C-alpha cells in the first residue's frame, strides 16, 4: 500500500499526490478512493475466509454421514459462512467498495458529501467485523443459529450469539451512515450539467440501495438489540412461554433482511447496466425504465418480507398478499433483463473479461430470479421450504448475480484506480472455470431441494449422494477459477501493463480523468454536456 508498488506511476494520482503514503495516511484518509480500497481489502478478506468455510461445508456434504466434521461444527460453520458473506462481504461490499470508488467520480464530485463520516463508516465496519471475529473465539464459541439468528434457538443456545449480533449491529450502523452519505452526495454534489436524466445507471442503483440502507437497517438494529436483551435480561418478548411471540422476531428480522437482498443485488444490476453499453458499443436501451425499475425494486421489495414466513404460521390472507407482492417485484426485475438484452441486440459485442462476467450475470440472475418465484408462490413454497432448493436459489441470486457483478466490476473499474491492468487470457479462463463450477455446484442443490433434501444438515439420505458429490466437485472447480481470477487480477493491478485513461471507450465521467485519478478526481471541475451512454462524445465531460 505504498508508492513503491507503483514505481512508474505519475506523481499526480491519489496514490502519491498528497505526499502521504504511510499506513496512517490510509486508515485515517478521508479520500473516497482510499476508503474504497480499504473497503476492498477488508471485504475481500471476509469473502475469502467465507469461501474457505464454504468449501469445508461442501466437503462435509460430499458423502452421507460424517465426512470431516460433526453436526455441531457444521452448524457453527454454516452460520459463520452466512454471517461473513452477508454482513461483512456482500452488503458492505458494493456501497463500500464501488459506491465509494466510482460513484463520486461518476457524478463529477471531488468527494462524498461527508468525507469524515465516510471514514467513520469504515472504522465502524472494522469494529463490527472484529467483534464478530471475537465472538467466534470467546464465550460459548461461534454462534450456531444460522445467519438469521431465529428465536427461540438464538436465545437458548449457549454459543456466543450476543457478541456476534452486537458485531452485526455495529456493521449495520456503518451501513446506515454510508446510505445517508450517498443519498446526500447524489442530491447535493452533482457537477454542473449532471442532471438526474444524465446520471449513470450505476449511480441510480447506488441511490436506490442507499435508501434501503437508510430505511431498513434501523429495524434490524432494534431486532438484534432485542435478541441481546432476551439473552441477557430475560425480557421474554419473543418467548411464547412468557407471552411473547417468536413470529414477531421473524417479522422484524425480515422487514430489514428482505430489503437487504436488494442492497446486495441492486448495485450489481447497476454495474452490468454500465458494462453492456460499453462492450456492445451501443447506448443503453430503456435508460429511464432501468433507472425507474431500481427505485421500483427498492420500493416494492420493502413490502414482501413475510414471504420468508409462509410456513411459520401467518394467516392465509397474509400469505396471499405477500405472495402477490413478491410477484410484483419480478416486474421491474424483468424490465431490467429485457432492457439489457435489447441493449445487446445488434450491438458490436466484444467479449472481454468484464463483459463475460456481466453476461453470465444475466443468465445466473435469471435462474435465481425465476426459482425465487417458485418460492414466492404460496403452494410450491410449502414443498421446497427449508430445502437445498432455497440454498441453490439464494446462491444463484447472490453469488451468480451479485457476486459475478462484483467480479465484473473488479475487472472493469479496479484498473482505473491502480493504473495497471490484468492479463486478459487468464481472466477469461478463470471466468470459464467459475461459470462452469458455479453451475455444477448450485444447480444440483436446486434439484436436491425439489427431491426433498433439507438444508442446514451435515448428513443426508443415501439417494441424495450422487448429486451432492457433483456439487462438491463443482465447488472445487469454482474455487480454482476464483483463485486464478484473484491472483491474475491483483498481480496485474500491482505489476501489470499500464492502463490508459479510457481504453474501453466508456462515456461516463470516470473515463475522462487519468488512471489512477488525482486526489481531487478532476483537474478542473467538469461541466457535463452529454448523457452517460453517448459514445460519440466519450472521453470529454
Amino acid at each position: 500500500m505504498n508508492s513503491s508498488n507503483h514505481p512508474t506511476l505519475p506523481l499526480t494520482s491519489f496514490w502519491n499526490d498528497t505526499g502521504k503514503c504511510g499506513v496512517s495516511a490510509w486508515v485515517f484518509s478521508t479520500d473516497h478512493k482510499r476508503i474504497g480500497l480499504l473497503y476492498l481489502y477488508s471485504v475481500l478478506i471476509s469473502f475469502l475466509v467465507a469461501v474457505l468455510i464454504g468449501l469445508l461445508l461442501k466437503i462435509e456434504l460430499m458423502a452421507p454421514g460424517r465426512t470431516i466434521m460433526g453436526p455441531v461444527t457444521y452448524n457453527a460453520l454454516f452460520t459463520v459462512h452466512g454471517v461473513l458473506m452477508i454482513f461483512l462481504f456482500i452488503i458492505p461490499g458494493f456501497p463500500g467498495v464501488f459506491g465509494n470508488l466510482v460513484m463520486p467520480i461518476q457524478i463529477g464530485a471531488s468527494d462524498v458529501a461527508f468525507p469524515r463520516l465516510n471514514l467513520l463508516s469504515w472504522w465502524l465496519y472494522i469494529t463490527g467485523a472484529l467483534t464478530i471475529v471475537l465472538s467466534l473465539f470467546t464465550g460459548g464459541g461461534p454462534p450456531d443459529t444460522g445467519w438469521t439468528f431465529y428465536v427461540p434457538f438464538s436465545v437458548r443456545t449457549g454459543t456466543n450469539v450476543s457478541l456476534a449480533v452486537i458485531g452485526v449491529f455495529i456493521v449495520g450502523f456503518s451501513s446506515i451512515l454510508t446510505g445517508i452519505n450517498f443519498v446526500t452526495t447524489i442530491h447535493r454534489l452533482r457537477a454542473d450539467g449532471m442532471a438526474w436524466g444524465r446520471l449513470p445507471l450505476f449511480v441510480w442503483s447506488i441511490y436506490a440501495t442507499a435508501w434501503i440502507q437508510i430505511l431498513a437497517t434501523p429495524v434490524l438494529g432494534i431486532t438484534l438489540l432485542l435478541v441481546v436483551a432476551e439473552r441477557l435480561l430475560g425480557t421474554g418478548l419473543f418467548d411464547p412461554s412468557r407471552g411473547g411471540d417468536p413470529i414477531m422476531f421473524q417479522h422484524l428480522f425480515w422487514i430489514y433482511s428482505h430489503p437487504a437482498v436488494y442492497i446486495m443485488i441492486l448495485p450489481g444490476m447497476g454495474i452490468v447496466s454500465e458494462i453492456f453499453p460499453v462492450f456492445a458499443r451501443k447506448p443503453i436501451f430503456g435508460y429511464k425504465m432501468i433507472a425507474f425499475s431500481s427505485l421500483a425494486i427498492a420500493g416494492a421489495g420493502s413490502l414482501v418480507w413475510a414471504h420468508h414466513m409462509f410456513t411459520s404460521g401467518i394467516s392465509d390472507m397474509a400469505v396471499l398478499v405477500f405472495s402477490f407482492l413478491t410477484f410484483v417485484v419480478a416486474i421491474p426485475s424483468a424490465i431490467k433483463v429485457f432492457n439489457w438484452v435489447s441493449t445487446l441486440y445488434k450491438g458490436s459485442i466484444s467479449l472481454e473479461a468484464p463483459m463475460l462476467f456481466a453476461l453470465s450475470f444475466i443468465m445466473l440472475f435469471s435462474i435465481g430470479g425465476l426459482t425465487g418465484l417458485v418460492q414466492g408462490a404460496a403452494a410450491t413454497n410449502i414443498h421446497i421450504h427449508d430445502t437445498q432448493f432455497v440454498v441453490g436459489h439464494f446462491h444463484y441470486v447472490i453469488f451468480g448475480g451479485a457476486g459475478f457483478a462484483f467480479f465484473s466490476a473488479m475487472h472493469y473499474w479496479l484498473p482505473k484506480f491502480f493504473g495497471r491492468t490484468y492479463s486478459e487470457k487468464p481472466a477469461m479462463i478463470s471466468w470459464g472455470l467459475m461459470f462452469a463450477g458455479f453451475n455444477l455446484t448450485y444447480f444440483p442443490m436446486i434439484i436436491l431441494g425439489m427431491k426433498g433434501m433439507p438444508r442446514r444438515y451435515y448428513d443426508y439420505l443415501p439417494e441424495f449422494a450422487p448429486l451432492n458429490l457433483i456439487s462438491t466437485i463443482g465447488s472445487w472447480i469454482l474455487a480454482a477459477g476464483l483463485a486464478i481470477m484473484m491472483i491474475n487480477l491483483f498481480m496485474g493491478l500491482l505489476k501489470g501493463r499500464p492502463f490508459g485513461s479510457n481504453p474501453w471507450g466508456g462515456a461516463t465521467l470516470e473515463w475522462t480523468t487519468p488512471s489512477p485519478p488525482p486526489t481531487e478526481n478532476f483537474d478542473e471541475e467538469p461541466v457535463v454536456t452529454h448523457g452517460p451512454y453517448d459514445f460519440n462524445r466519450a472521453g470529454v465531460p
Partner: protein
Amino acid sequence: MIRKMEKEYAGAKLGIWLFLFTEILLFGGLFLLYATYLSSYPREFAIAGREMHLGFGTANTILLITSSLFAAMSVTAVQQGEIRKVLNLLGATIICAMIFLVNKYFEWSSEIGHGFYPDSPRFSAGPIGEALFFSLYYLTTGLHGFHVLAGVGLLTVVALKVRRGAIHAGDYVLLENSALYWHLVDLIWIFIFPLYYLVL
C-alpha cells in the same frame, strides 16, 4: 466558493433529516411490538399501566418540552450572534436533560423496588401479559434514556465549540442539527408518554 458553502449547509441538513428518519425506524420496532402485544393482552396491559407513576412521567414531559424550547431558542440566538445567550440556553437544555435522567433513575428504582422487572418473582407467578408490558417499558424508555444521555454529550460538545468560537452566526449548522436531534428525542418521548402513562 459561496455556492460550495450553500451546498455544505443544505447537505448537512439533508443528512441530519435522513438520520432522524433512521432513529424513528429504530424506535418503530419497539412501537410495533407495543401495538401487537397491546392487542394480544389488552387487559394485562391496562393493569400493568396503572402501576406507572404519572407524576414522574408528567414532570419529565414538561422538562423535555421546555428543554426543546431552550434548544430552539439557542439556534435563534446564534443566528443573531448572541453567544452569551446561546451558552446559557444550551446550559439550560443540558440541565433539563440531566434532571430528566435523575427523575428516570428514581422512577425505575421505585418500580424495580416493587418487583416490576423482567424475570422477577412477582411476574413469574402472575399473568404473562404484564411482564411483557414492563419489558417493553424498560426497553423503550431505556433506549430513549440512552438517547437523552447521548444528547447531553452532544450538546456539551456543541457548547464547548460555541465558546471556542468554532460555531458562530456565520456557521452554526452543527448547533442547528444538534437541536434537531434534541427535538427528535423530545418527539419520541411525546409518543412514549401517552402510550405508557396515559392511555391504559
